[in-house]
């Protein structure tokens, strides 16, 4: 142990006070970004599976240096930006699908055979709304269209 303590006394990590403060700050940022990414990951579930991986800074566990911590911080920030963009795109798509469903419900004949699933709206379950003719072929010829709601799978 004495050898270790002696080695520690001459460690450059210990003498570089400013650098250590910088590493502390980067670690705080990594912790904050990790929390944010975890929140986005759970928010996306189960509609989307977000990739939260970032390249490992080192081949094994070690005190990461400033450059390594910066790379991890930047990669996490990049992942968060990607995740936000994916979630925003998805939210916009779901919003458009909700509007399409409202139009379909208002005028089924104008949306013949269109089908919108709960998944398309970001809702749980596997049901769907389907514009189809009442009484099959007869309804199709007579223009009796309606939106049929499927409750989805039994389980």
């Amino acid at each position, binding site marked *: *142990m004495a*050898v*270790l*303590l002696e*080695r*520690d006394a001459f*460690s450059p*990590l*210990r003498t570089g006070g400013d650098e*250590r403060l910088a*590493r502390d700050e980067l*670690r705080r940022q*990594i*912790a904050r970004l*990790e*929390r944010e990414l*975890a*929140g986005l*990951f*759970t928010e996306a*579930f*189960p509609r989307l599976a977000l990739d*939260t*991986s*970032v*390249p*490992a*800074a*080192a*081949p*094994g*566990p*070690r*005190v*990461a240096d400033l450059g*390594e*911590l910066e790379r*991890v911080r930047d990669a*996490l920030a990049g992942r968060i930006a990607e995740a936000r963009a994916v979630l925003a795109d998805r939210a916009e798509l779901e919003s458009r699908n909700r509007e399409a469903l409202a139009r379909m419900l208002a005028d089924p004949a104008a949306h013949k055979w269109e089908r919108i699933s709960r998944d398309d709206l970001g809702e749980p379950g596997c049901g769907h709304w389907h514009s189809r003719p009442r009484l099959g072929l007869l309804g199709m010829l007579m223009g009796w269209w309606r939106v049929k709601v499927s409750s989805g799978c039994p389980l």
Partner: protein
Amino acid sequence: MRAQGGWVAPRIATEFPGLGISWAEVDCRPGKSPEPVRRRLRDLSDRFYGGHAIHMRERPIPWAYRVFFRQIGLEPDGTPTPVERLALERLHDGAFKSHGLPADALSIAIAETGVALRAFDADQLQGPLCIRDSAPGESLAGQPHDLPQGTLVIADERSPVGLLFGADAEGKAVDRETRRIAIVSVQVNGVPQMSVDEALWMVATALEST
């Protein structure tokens, strides 16, 4: 059970406030888990679903280990934290499968508390355990190459007994000849001491019940 606190090399402690190691030794032979332990594992399986695994990373203790992994250069999605590895195994296997003692006791405590635990053959350890960085030319017994200098290891007075959150050194792991098991917890910033004590107690009581 009497938990003992290890030490963290000063410069590592300066870098990672809150990092700690503690352990408890239990007289126990490895082997098939008794029915109460297997039943507890089954009960745990019934309470643990995919949603738990997804939301796990937002809970304080699993999050603390994920953060620490990032901070020491590990990628927690590639090298999962102990509790996340367990969650993945549960989802993959459909249940927490019994692997005998001490593995089952560790699984129960890790899943219940989120604290990182591992076991060593206590008779193969010498002196108090510590977390430190490897010295030049130091290696992990059984590995062909020297450890890169600065690798974080769990060590006893003689040598590294395992990588921090990694492989055990040869001869230090629990095997058929083991008669005394050292349950070791690694605490990181954000993990309450109470959770560490509870985790060690849970493993010790499960092992002592045999």
